[in-house]
């Protein structure tokens, strides 16, 4: 093969990842109808994150990517976490101390 890409994944592995994604889709749809209380959201987002990891690591080749690409991705997720975390910290604590005008 060419020097441009060292390793070419087998088609079988891609099909296995795909099968995993389908199983997780069926699982998340089925579990949505089971009353888990507040855990319903956590389970749905947990399964979604597993699916996202499968797509990113294997289909988007993050697993074989350079350290630099991985670092930049982690940095992006950090900024996303800051945006979501700080905004929810604001909305979640409004009115907490009964300050007028909030």
């Amino acid at each position, binding site marked *: 093969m060419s020097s*441009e890409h060292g390793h070419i994944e087998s088609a079988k592995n*891609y*099909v296995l990842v795909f099968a995993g994604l389908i199983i997780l889709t069926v699982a998340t749809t089925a579990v949505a109808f089971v009353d888990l209380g507040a855990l319903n959201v956590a389970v749905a987002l947990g399964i979604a994150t597993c699916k*996202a990891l499968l797509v990113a690591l294997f289909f988007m080749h993050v697993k074989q990517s*350079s350290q630099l690409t991985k670092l930049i991705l982690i940095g992006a997720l950090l900024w996303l976490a800051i945006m979501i975390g700080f905004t929810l910290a604001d909305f979640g604590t409004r009115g907490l101390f009964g300050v007028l005008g909030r």
Partner: protein
Amino acid sequence: VETLALREQFDTAAQQKEASTLGMWIFLITEIMFFGGMFLCYTVYRSAYPHVFAEASRSLNVYIGAANTVVLLCSSLTMVLAVRAAQLGRRKAIVTYLVLTLALGLVFLGVKAVEWQEKFAHHHIPGQAGFHLEGLAPDLQGQAQLFFSLYFAMTGLHALHMVIGAGIMIALAYWAYKGRYTADYVTPVDVGGLYWHFVDLVWIYLFPLLYLIDRVAK
């Protein structure tokens, strides 16, 4: 046949590939932040009006949503197989897999169009004079409109990305057919694949958040 193997500003093919991949990832990161803002907006309003958002979410057809998720995942499989075919230099296979990806993408968009059409039929269009979500008091209809505004903004922008992706598939399939991509030059297929998978990733989060998390009536 033109192969466009190595541009003069790069020392090696590996360096050229690395630059392209990194550039695409940085673009996708701006997309993560773009969609992230909408996911955040959804989260804030959902926590503000949990009851109405749950009621509105239950009005969506979860089976159509799940089936469409499967369609999109199939298109991601054919996309990654197109990239693999390019790495192996199999011209015909690249074209076949890209056309399959395009077809599955169009199926997804078609199903989405049917879903939107239903919203018009049921008066679930925000801003529509006759907007009405069944089972909700009149003073809560505004909050329901907010849910559907977010629903249309998020699925609409996702669908727009799919339309752009379909255009990319057509261009890639054409050039692949013309023999532009060889085992030594797969970067456009690879980078186009990253875009397609990213659009899939967005849907992986849209599906549970819009369709699933409020299925159990409390």
